[in-house]
């Protein structure tokens, strides 16, 4: 089958503003959009720039907009989006070149929620693992899936409209630690997510949940943080 691929282009070294280029190419229904971008780069225009690595939806490099919705380019197929395909960079982060955006503000937000395990109590005397029941482990399973692709955060209208909102991805990370029975810094993290740049900016639009390529119930996770903030209980 033939597909038309309309791609957002911007090269700051040449272009004053962005433009779109359209390419027509042969594809099959099971081609990933990433496969098509690779073909365009290989045969049509070597300057086309985008990030990619694992090519099967686990590294989080190639989040972008396809037909207006956030996807990983390697996890959306032609059969999912049809033969007229528009590819654009993520919204809400500065475009650096073509489909590459500046990820630094995104990772800066991630770093604000103390994104690491904190437990300063002595380790078990037997030299073994800290114990955790399967139920305690299951409590935060969902939010351990996050690959930091930014599809959620850059789909969020609250993030688009304010620079200082932590955004869904950082809140997912906060959730992962706050609900981990072994972690001891929940109070500190709750303080961070309870500030005005935190969960209060979530207006349950659900864009993040729709956008997540790992199918994390993000709005629900943020809801659980809100509940913990209101009740003062982490359950």
């Amino acid at each position, binding site marked *: 089958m033939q597909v038309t691929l309309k791609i957002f282009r911007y090269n700051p070294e040449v272009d004053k503003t962005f433009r779109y280029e359209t390419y027509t190419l042969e594809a099959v229904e099971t081609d990933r959009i990433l496969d098509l971008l690779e073909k365009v*780069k290989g045969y049509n225009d070597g300057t086309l720039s985008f990030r990619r690595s694992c090519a099967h939806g686990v590294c989080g490099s190639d989040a972008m907009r396809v037909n207006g919705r956030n996807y990983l380019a390697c996890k959306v197929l032609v059969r999912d989006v049809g033969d007229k395909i528009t590819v654009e960079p993520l919204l809400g982060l500065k475009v650096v070149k073509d489909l590459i955006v500046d990820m630094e503000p995104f990772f800066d937000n991630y770093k604000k929620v103390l994104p690491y395990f904190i437990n300063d109590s002595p380790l078990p005397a037997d030299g073994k693992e800290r114990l955790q029941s399967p139920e305690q482990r299951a409590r935060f399973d969902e939010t351990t899936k996050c690959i930091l692709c930014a599809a959620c955060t850059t789909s969020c209208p609250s993030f688009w409209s304010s620079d200082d909102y932590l955004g869904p991805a950082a809140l997912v990370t906060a959730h992962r630690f706050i609900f981990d029975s072994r972690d001891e810094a929940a109070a500190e993290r709750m303080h961070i997510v309870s500030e005005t740049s935190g969960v209060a900016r979530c207006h349950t639009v659900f864009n993040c949940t729709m956008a997540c390529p790992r199918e994390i119930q993000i709005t629900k996770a943020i809801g659980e943080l809100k509940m913990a903030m209101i009740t003062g209980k982490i359950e």
Partner: protein
Amino acid sequence: MNIHQFDVVVVGAGGAGLMAGLYASRGAKTAVISKLYPTRSHTGAAQGGVAAALGNLEGDNPDWHTYDTVKGSDYLGDQDAIEFMCHEAPQAVIELENYGLPFDRTPDGRISQRPFGGHTNNETGKPVRRACHAADRTGHMILQTLYQQCLKNKVNFFDEYQVLDFIIVNGKAAGVVAVELATGELHTFHAKAIIFATGGHGRIFEVTSNAYAYTGDGAAILLRHGLPLQDMEFFQFHPTGIYKLGILITEGVRGEGGILINGKGERFMPKYAPTIKDLASRDVVSRAIYTEIREGRGVNGQNYVYLDVRPESVIKYAALDGRTNPDGTPYIVTGEQILKKLPDIIDFCRVYLGVDPLTQMMPIQPTAHYTMGGIPTNKYGEVVIDDKNTVLPGLYAAGECACVSVHGGNRLGCNSLLDIIVFGKHAGLKAAEYAKTADFEKLPDDAEAGSRSAFEALRNGSGKENAFDIGTEMKKVMFDDVGIYRNEKGMAEALEKVRALKERFKGVRVTDTGKIFNTELLNAWELGNMLEVAEVITVSALNRKESRGGHSREDCPNRDDKNWLKHTLVRKQNGEIKIDYKPVTITKYQPKERVY
């Protein structure tokens, strides 16, 4: 010139690089530079688990793990290093848990374990639960946890910096040169110790589970400096990749009771591995699949077979095999339990194949998966450069780019995640210790000259050749002729072809003349690395006239311990490839026939 000075510089931010960075930073001023954001590294794609004889669910011990690894390596692994790794394993996994890694749990709250290929109870020969897992995203959890701990410990990161060259002065490591992708600027990292943790090179093959980033950069850079690479002919083809795409379907599927089925609907592994059947070593299972396909028992005459993890099949074959739960009750599973244990696998099949593994069988074929060979090191991660294991002062390597050698001719599943945490840690410790007493070597006047000229060559080629075509042709010939089954004629033709491609590569001209994220230039440079690596793999494979582990020659079908129980060292001198050998360290386990 942009010059940075650190005691220790780690190149690569996958599991090995992050572990090295974490440990080195405790004793020395350390930087980690990576061509990707660290969380994009390929460790994150590892699924099934990390091996350690914790014995949480049944009797196990590090000696069994050692023997299984020696046997899995087809006796090419160095037994002192293997013993070291397997005995460090329990503590290393506990350490990850202490860093917060969310392992799945047993009912009594300990780290959960599942069976995995080649890991056995040495008394019964039956599969043992040794793979410590976090669903089917164990690598993702390791990568995240280690990155998080590095942030906590304020390790210095240089994200999206591609290393281009290694600086060696007076026979010692002195630094590396890298390009900052966002600006195109070259940077020199002046260091006392350098740790390469640059990963493997599976992207030289057409069907692979490996990330685009897996282009053999570290290996190729050292090769250009006349340094040796070890056992490059040994590459692992994982039995279960998604048909055509090569995306990995973890061995954990078989660990949970999945079985392989040919086109006639028969379970075929008992023919090839009567005792552990579908959980034999990867090389054995990959060859079995290929044999089925070649003898006409692929599905619909195509190059694939099925992997079946439908609950009714799992229950049926578990009963036939006498598999029970740890408490002795029959092994029964539901679709819901399988979904919980293998969520990503089920997601991959649904997305890429439109197949639901809970009700349908998965079409699979072997996929190029893991680089057993690489930069030779001792068990402390120190790079060694000859048959006497002479250390190159200040240079370290760990993880998939390195060859300790703990995997020998064939790696066991779950031993790669173990390798990265054990040897990443020791490389980091050793490098920091070295940096305490070593001095900085004086940098050469123009340390960046080599990198600049490599880029200039790519910008000034005739433009007659297309890099994408060259890459495609390389991948095809390597997969077809230097793949699972090999022979003299096919490999000789492959070598000729790869050399012709290297010539044609000189005619590539990068069209992007910009500096900012010039990914065309970087991809072309990576292709150059892959061609270098493909050439030495083919030469090493042609040279080894036996079959061992992942190196299976139709024209020399048997293992030949008399002539070939030795490591290959391959290097380039004045453009010529030279092969030397190094003895295998054998301590407790004398080579014997390998039967599963």
